[in-house]
């Protein structure tokens, strides 16, 4: 199987003229197949565990960390924030229900507004609609609140939809896709270079994770940060690593990228928050 894939890629390398006519459904199937072929020993559902799905040595340490994960403190903080009353007497629970177990509904395409709505955006919009200031996008309270909501949503299926009756949704998906596959920054890396074509290889001292499953486990407590962070914080960090100026968190670029990456992981389960290196 591996050789077939390689052969195909080789042919593609010659044929720039080939169109990208495949739709999201075909994209997704080919994407997931790619990883299943590349990592035949990884059970499909395990891809939601990031690099630990392919790296046994690191997985043992990760499991030891998960015995009492550092994000539990964030979940507790998040629970308090989630239920604390706004000035108008309401709380996030009025927007997202008693436990905020809504992770499986995001990100989604909002036809009325013509944009991708992420869970972080929905949280801040709920706050603003109730006369509160929005949280920052990358860390702190937004990460705590979404840690709580994600924790209560564990096990929900990733099933991002790209409504076929709105061409703008497909356009947003295509933008995210292009973002994923284009080389950026002075180091000239695409997301796909590290996290697809050479996923599992060492980059200096680190093994890159498969992109299949990338969007399932957020927010994340990263040892490097020694704190919680959102997916867009990580996007920005990755871009900075390859010497590309990051885009704004929750801007169109990253929201569309999240839309694409999460759609690629359809069928897995949301399992955040998580601990990562």
């Amino acid at each position, binding site marked *: 199987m591996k050789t077939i894939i390689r052969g195909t890629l080789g042919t593609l390398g010659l044929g720039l003229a080939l169109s990208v006519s495949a739709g999201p459904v075909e994209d997704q199937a080919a994407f997931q197949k790619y990883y299943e072929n590349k990592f035949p020993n990884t059970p499909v559902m395990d891809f939601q565990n990031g690099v630990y799905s392919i790296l046994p040595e690191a997985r043992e340490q990760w499991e030891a960390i998960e*015995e*009492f994960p*550092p994000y*539990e*403190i964030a979940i*507790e903080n998040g629970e308090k924030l989630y239920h604390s009353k706004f000035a108008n007497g309401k709380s996030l629970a009025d927007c997202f229900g008693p436990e905020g177990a809504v992770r499986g509904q995001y990100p989604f395409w909002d036809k009325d507004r013509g944009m991708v709505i992420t869970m972080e955006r929905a949280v801040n919009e709920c706050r603003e609609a109730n006369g509160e200031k929005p949280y920052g996008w990358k860390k702190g309270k937004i990460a705590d609140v979404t840690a709580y909501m994600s924790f209560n949503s564990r096990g929900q299926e990733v099933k991002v939809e790209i409504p076929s009756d709105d061409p703008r949704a497909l356009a947003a998906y295509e933008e995210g896709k292009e973002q994923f596959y284009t080389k950026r920054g002075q180091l000239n890396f695409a997301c796909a270079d590290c996290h697809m074509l050479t996923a599992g290889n060492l980059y200096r001292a680190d093994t890159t994770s498969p992109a299949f499953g990338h969007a399932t486990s957020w927010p994340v407590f990263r040892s490097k940060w*020694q704190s919680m962070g959102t997916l867009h914080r990580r996007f920005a960090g990755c871009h900075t690593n390859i010497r590309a100026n990051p885009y704004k968190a929750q801007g169109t670029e990253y929201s569309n990228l999240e839309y694409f990456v999460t759609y690629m992981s359809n069928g897995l389960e949301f399992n955040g928050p998580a601990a990562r290196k």
Partner: protein
Amino acid sequence: MSSIRIKAKERNGSVDVKTLMKHNMETGLRKNKDGSKIPEHWITDVTAESGGKTVFAAAFNTSISKDPYLAFAFAGKKGDTLKISWKDNTGKTDSAETKVK
């Protein structure tokens, strides 16, 4: 809220204890942005008591990771009270109690 989270579960007469203590555990080696050293500040001692006696105790160096994690096991049963306390080098203390599950 206490800085200490405890999980204590009994199995076959033995209580598995896992605890996480929120503490910066400053090594004294890190520097502020202005170049001045951040003074060392860390938990030096941890004690676990159950049924009026100490069931576990430990002393830490600054090399224990931030938000220290500690796991141990002692002879006990469901419903026992377990109290865990820490003390740091500035004299601060904290403690938390839980019932064994």
